[in-house]
């Protein structure tokens, strides 16, 4: 098969993945809405003076399983799309922002599916599907560039090491971010007198806090490695391992914020809400680095291809 047909195949895979993620989105939306809104499956029982609604999630269990199946299928299609893109260009598919985005979406879905094996995170599915669809949508409409060879500075084994570590870290950071955001939302609800009906199925604050910590603790060494691998590569390519290039600066800021988050978790007074805010802040610095520095920033990391 020629390079061009591999590139076309990659595009078909990405479009199919988007279609499947849309189905996953609807399945998750249906699951969430059906369990909550339909009065016929809700039984009302009085508890003291309050009317407490309990919901029957058994009824939507099958939809939830279908949604997860769609997520897995979407992940596989996305994976094929990324691989085909790489084959079409005879290199790892991490040469411009379109390619970073499709791989990042894949890493995000992958992180979610992996975390799903140990924790029931299906309540997150709706958010994950939305985020992935938005990322892929932006990628194919705004960021798309034809498959092409790499510029000389990117021709290095370190591309594979540095970028893969950064993308995987990014996927997990964003997952931790959604969990931290959920924590803050639920925390606020509880402060104001209790969770909404739909939020009742979500885990307790403590579980969310712990889950968020585990994700960050798991991926922080990887992010440290990504930064160091980048430094080693920079020494090879640009003659200095650290030069406060905007991308480097923001990678450093992200690192510092997550380091602060990990320390905060150890310090008693910073657990819970403050830690969640820190996590959210750290994740935002990562996103800012990806979006702002790639597209509008100056410096040596301008590989967006835009």
């Amino acid at each position: 098969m020629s390079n061009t047909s591999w590139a076309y195949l990659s595009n078909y895979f990405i479009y199919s993945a988007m279609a499947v993620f849309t189905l996953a989105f609807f399945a998750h939306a249906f699951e969430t809405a059906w369990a909550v809104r339909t009065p016929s499956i809700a039984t009302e029982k009085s508890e003291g003076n309050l009317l407490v609604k309990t919901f029957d999630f058994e009824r939507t269990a099958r939809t939830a399983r279908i949604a997860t199946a769609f997520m897995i299928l979407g992940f596989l299609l996305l994976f094929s799309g990324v691989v085909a893109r790489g084959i079409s260009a005879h290199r790892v598919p991490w040469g411009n922002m379109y390619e970073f985005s499709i791989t990042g979406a894949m890493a995000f879905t992958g992180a979610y599916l992996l975390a799903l094996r140990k924790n029931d995170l299906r309540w997150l599915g709706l958010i994950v599907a939305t985020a992935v669809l938005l990322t892929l949508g932006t990628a194919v409409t705004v960021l798309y560039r034809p498959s092409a060879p790499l510029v000389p500075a990117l021709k290095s084994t370190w591309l594979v090491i540095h970028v893969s570590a950064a993308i995987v870290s990014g996927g997990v950071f964003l997952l931790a971010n959604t969990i931290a955001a959920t924590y803050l939302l639920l925390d606020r609800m509880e402060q104001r007198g209790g969770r909404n009906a739909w939020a009742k199925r979500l885990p307790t604050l403590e579980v969310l806090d712990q889950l968020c910590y585990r994700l960050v603790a798991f991926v922080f060494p990887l992010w440290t490695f990504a930064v160091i691998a980048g430094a080693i590569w920079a020494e090879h390519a640009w003659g200095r391992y650290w030069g406060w290039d905007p991308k480097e600066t923001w990678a450093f800021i992200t690192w510092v914020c997550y380091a602060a988050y990990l320390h905060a978790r150890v310090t008693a007074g910073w657990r819970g809400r403050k830690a969640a805010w820190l996590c959210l802040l750290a994740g935002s610095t990562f996103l800012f680095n990806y979006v702002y520095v790639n597209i509008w920033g100056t410096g040596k990391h301008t590989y967006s291809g835009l």
Partner: protein
Amino acid sequence: MSNEKIEIPALGLAALLRFSWRQLTSMRTALILLLMLGIAAIPGSLIPQRGQNPMRVQELFTQSPGLAKIYDALSLFDVYASPWFSAIYILLFLSLIGCVLPRSFEHFKAARALPPATPKNLDRMEHFTTWSSQGNELEVAQGWFKKNRFRVKVDGNSLSAEKGFLRETGNLLFHLALIMVLFGVSFGALFGMKGEAIVNVGETFVNTTTSYDSISLGRLSNESSLAPFTITVNKFLAKYNALTNAPEDYTLYVTSKKSPESKESQKIIKVNSPLGFGSTNVYLQANGYSPIVTVRDKGNTIVFQGPVPFLPQDSNLTSIGAIKVPDMKPQIGFVASLLPTAARDKVKGGISAFPELLDPSLLLSVWGGDLGLDRGVPQSVYRINTSKMEQIGLQSLKPGEIYTFADGSISFDGITPWVNLQIVRDPGKGFALIGSILAIAGLLASLFGRRRRIWIRVTAQGKVEVAGLAKNAVAGLAIEIETFVNAIKSKTERMA
């Protein structure tokens, strides 16, 4: 009385110092300093920095001098060398040292000591299990602990075992490794050097300070410490993508000599593979074209000859430059642009359509008058200050063509590529690298290490009691204790 009066402020000062030190080394302060460091790094990524982009800084000074002066007063053009940024990281590292060193001693002592005695009431501890003794439990447990590398203290009719010192070891290693990274960075900055030189293909670069276009030596590094190598640039090949015009490959062929006495050797420098001379590396950083011209005066004597490096303006290498001929009367200057593949743009005029030399063209604007070179004000080599000059000619030349103007002539003889070599010596990078590797190792150990204790006691009533405690509430101890209990039960049953 008088003694007391002197002592009170002295005591106050000591107490104040002790108080400040304790505040500085507290986790809360470290946390706040860490966040401050992150925030302090932000302006450097939004405002152009002298170290990375001196041209943009200069532009800002001409565009909005007021703002630039304020920025400059606040060190916002040199954020990462500014007093306030340094203050934050020095305080942070002091706080870190003050926290980590005492902890290291403590940890060292604890690691050599035996675990503390078994608690009296094991049934109040976590993971409590009990069963009736078959005999030999303590002996079997001793063996199991030894096999699993627990440190064991025999405490009467019980054993107290502990494992997982790696967690704190890793934690301390991580923080000490960060100090090492900082040391490597400072060492490199003090004893290293960094410089850049533009070299035309065909020319030879000799590593002395005068050969550089710009050079910065570390504070404790001097000119005589430059490695005595020479590099002759033989050939430069650039490959571009025919569809996207993007560069695909740069290869630089050089002849290098380690020192004037050593033998010549043929080497290749590429973007991701620098050429090394000991601790000094030579990097291929940028490239462009130098038109080769010959300028003659009215009497047909050559007043200027040679390649002149032009500065690329876009990805198709549309380049601008200046040819200054001060030895003519009046002085002559050529404001020029070089188009490797000449094309016309409705708005921009003459531009290049491809970065290779497919149809090169040199656009010249000839100026006569005073070049202003004698006034001692540094000038850009790519630009001419034409305020005291007047334009006396305008011409576009193809290679081989000659243009004759009132005061002389210029011939466009050809084009040679130039390369920008970056020469760097960083003796501290090894420390920084080792520090980084140790930091990751320490981080992994501290995040995934589990410190836990397991106790086993055989009571006078013939009961076996087992309990455990996991520090930092890390999961996994329940499973470990289950394995432990099963191992002991099965072994003692067999022995019985």
